[in-house]
């Protein structure tokens, strides 16, 4: 795209780039917002994951540090690694640099649904890193709050195996679980909006056609997505993230009311654009494991070029990884994502 229409314009701030894309305008260059979360970021400032686990100051500093080091356009503002499962009372443990583990589930049968009645996402402690990031980097950069869908929260409190076994054993219970976790998604979403985020990422990690059939997606996951997005999208734009292959359900995803679809690496971006039409922003989709963790700098360059060629021509594209960057991804690869994103992303 080098040398096309935008040449010679004033450079935009990172936040303006993000806003331009959402408004359907062509920015100076493709915005770059990789999925760098509280799992990857602590090491950037020399801290361990267990230190930043529930320490909002550490977490915010880590995300600020990563943004400064790599120079991308927007950051996730996380509530703290343990917070998502914690929202609904699941015990979480983390050791050293390991990923936090949800060590138990809270819903074994219908009687346990009551336990979900009082989520406490408003707690000062959980919103502290979000507010700090909004203050520290929010003027110039996009700040994205992150919340889980009711479907994902339901799977978490029930345990994924139990949850997906219920699809056939007791589908009504699946609906009840999702209804019971919906208030948590809404409460967290609203608290993030109040804390000042520019957009909300709603993650529905288990809804893809790599895990459940499109038919089950339509029955269980989609209605809840559409409902919570309907409630939240009036305030800020919503980015819907579904891991792995979402191609068979893209048309529905485009109808949830999400402004942005965050697509993972199995999805073909050009094909996705044809399915969702022009109005929706696509964000994606560099392979977080094969390219970012295991690939070389040359692999990153190639993947970035392919993604931009496939999806960025008419604007409405944010360059990103398809999913969270693994802890072991080399620094050079993250740096290369930004470097080549700038090189090939100029309008």
């Amino acid at each position: 795209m080098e040398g096309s229409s935008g040449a010679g314009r004033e450079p935009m701030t990172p936040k303006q780039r993000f806003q331009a894309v959402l408004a359907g305008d062509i920015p100076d260059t493709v915005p770059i917002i990789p999925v760098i979360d509280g799992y990857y970021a602590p090491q950037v400032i020399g801290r361990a994951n267990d230190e930043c686990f529930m320490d909002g100051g550490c977490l915010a500093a880590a995300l600020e540090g990563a943004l400064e080091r790599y120079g991308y356009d927007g950051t996730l503002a996380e509530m703290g690694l343990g917070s998502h499962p914690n929202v609904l009372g699941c015990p979480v443990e983390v050791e050293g640099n390991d990923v936090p583990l949800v060590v138990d589930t809270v819903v074994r049968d219908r009687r346990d649904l009551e336990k979900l009645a009082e989520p406490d996402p408003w707690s000062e402690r959980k919103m502290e890193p979000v507010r700090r990031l909004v203050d520290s980097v929010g003027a110039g950069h996009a700040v994205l709050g992150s919340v889980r869908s009711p479907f994902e929260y339901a799977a978490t409190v029930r345990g994924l195996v139990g949850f997906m076994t219920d699809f056939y054993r007791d589908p009504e219970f699946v609906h009840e679980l999702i209804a019971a976790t919906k208030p948590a998604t809404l409460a967290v979403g609203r608290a993030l909006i109040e804390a000042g985020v520019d957009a909300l990422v709603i993650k529905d990690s288990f809804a893809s056609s790599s895990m459940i059939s499109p038919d089950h997606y339509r029955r269980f996951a989609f209605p809840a997505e559409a409902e919570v997005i309907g409630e939240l999208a009036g305030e800020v734009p919503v980015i819907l993230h579904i891991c792995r292959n979402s191609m068979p359900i893209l048309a529905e995803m485009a109808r949830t009311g999400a402004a942005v679809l965050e697509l993972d690496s199995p999805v073909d971006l050009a094909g996705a654009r044809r399915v969702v039409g022009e109005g929706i922003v696509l964000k994606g989709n560099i392979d977080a494991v094969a390219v970012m963790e295991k690939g070389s700098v040359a692999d990153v360059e190639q993947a970035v070029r392919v993604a931009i060629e496939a999806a960025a021509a008419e604007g409405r594209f944010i360059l990103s990884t398809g999913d969270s960057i693994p802890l072991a991804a080399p620094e050079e690869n993250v740096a290369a994502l930004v470097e080549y994103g700038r090189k090939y992303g100029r309008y």
Partner: protein
Amino acid sequence: MSQTLEQFKQAIVAGDVDGSVALSAAIIAEGDATAEQITDHLSAAMEEVGSRYETGEYFIPEMLRSAEAVERSLAVLEPYLFERQHDQGGVVVMGTVKGDIHNIGKNIIVSALKAAGYEVHDLGVNVSTAKFIDKVKQVDADLLLLSAFTTSTRPALLEILAVLEDEGLRDNLKVISGGASHSPEFAREVGVDGFAVDVKSTLAVCRKLLGD
């Protein structure tokens, strides 16, 4: 008899839990099926389920449904099998290694192995080295199956192998690993005896390493 077994297999493939339980009772009532015929049909069913997943016809809930049908049927069939089964398929200890909580793939393999007549001790997820070693000794396992889905589990795998080596347990025990992050190179570097990627190849590698 063979018709009941064939229907039984189809019920497992279809994930018809009630149907497969009823057919288990019918198999017992008829009384002429050998233990080997039953486990052959069960494992063929789970292989079929696995291949339907690989080809995209089945998704995870469909596999879990069939796994449940296996578990529930085995609960009914166990006394019958116990009476008739002279040579067990082998004793297996299986779990997901420390630092990793992925359990879907592990559970599917556990069901497939049980279906194939193995005695399976499932230790769950995030299992410490000590727990694996203790269980291997306690049940005198023939096979240790380690699920490892993230690449960061490598140190955990290496630790288990090192302790087995130190304690002189590797001669009579075959160690097999598998899971999403596995490649042949990964398995070779770690030094396991075998690795596999799906139900079919897992059953094949278990058979091969047990020498039948």
